[in-house]
């Protein structure tokens, strides 16, 4: 299990490929990648800054992975999360879970991602096209209404 906080852009596919070389015995891999959008709440967003509470972030993410491992048969997990200045289309977060069977991979990855959204101490500040800065005050439920 590895947790990485990055202050520069990363390629999630390279991270997965590199990390997976050290994982054995898996039959399922579930991946979530969150990418910065150039819009939010009806406004155009041209950049974002991600603040975090160093130390607590890593501690809480380790707890979350431990909770997932108690509930599902997780062989290994990788979390990479950006901090600092971020531009649209850059990946913000990668969660990858390796298991023997698909059910554990799907469920554990979803659990880790949702727990990260509610418990990992990161905060987004958006820079709008108008040069106004604003803190993101809450997470959505993760769905777009149709």
């Amino acid at each position, binding site marked *: 299990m590895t947790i990485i906080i990055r202050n520069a852009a990363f390629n999630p596919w390279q991270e997965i490929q590199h990390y997976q070389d050290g994982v054995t015995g898996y039959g399922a891999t579930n991946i979530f990648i969150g990418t910065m959008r150039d819009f939010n709440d009806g406004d155009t967003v041209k950049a974002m800054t991600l603040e975090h509470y160093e130390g607590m972030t890593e501690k809480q993410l380790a707890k979350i992975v431990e909770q997932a491992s108690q509930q599902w048969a997780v062989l290994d997990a990788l979390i990479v999360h950006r901090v600092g200045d971020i531009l649209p289309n850059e990946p913000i977060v990668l969660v990858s879970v390796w298991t023997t069977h698909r059910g554990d991979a799907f469920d554990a990855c979803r659990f880790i991602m949702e727990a990260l959204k509610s418990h990992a*101490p990161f*905060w*987004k*500040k958006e820079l709008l096209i108008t040069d106004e800065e604003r803190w993101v005050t809450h997470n959505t439920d993760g769905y777009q209404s149709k």
Partner: protein
Amino acid sequence: MTIKVRYFASLKDSLGRSDDCVTDTGSLSVHDVWQRLNAAQALPTNVLVAVNMDYVTLDTIVKDGDEVAFFPPVTGG
């Protein structure tokens, strides 16, 4: 006892500082720590609090050397 206090994100901006220090000889809860430092400003209702990087409730009693953190709802991912 000495308690280190930290603020993050919009709460840090509204207070105009990122950290504080409390020195006291009595028993203090996390909420008491806030009131000692920010008596003029009500604790935001949606604030999250941590002691030594674990989430706690406002009635948690702090001890010498603890690090207390106050911050708004998290928005990572």
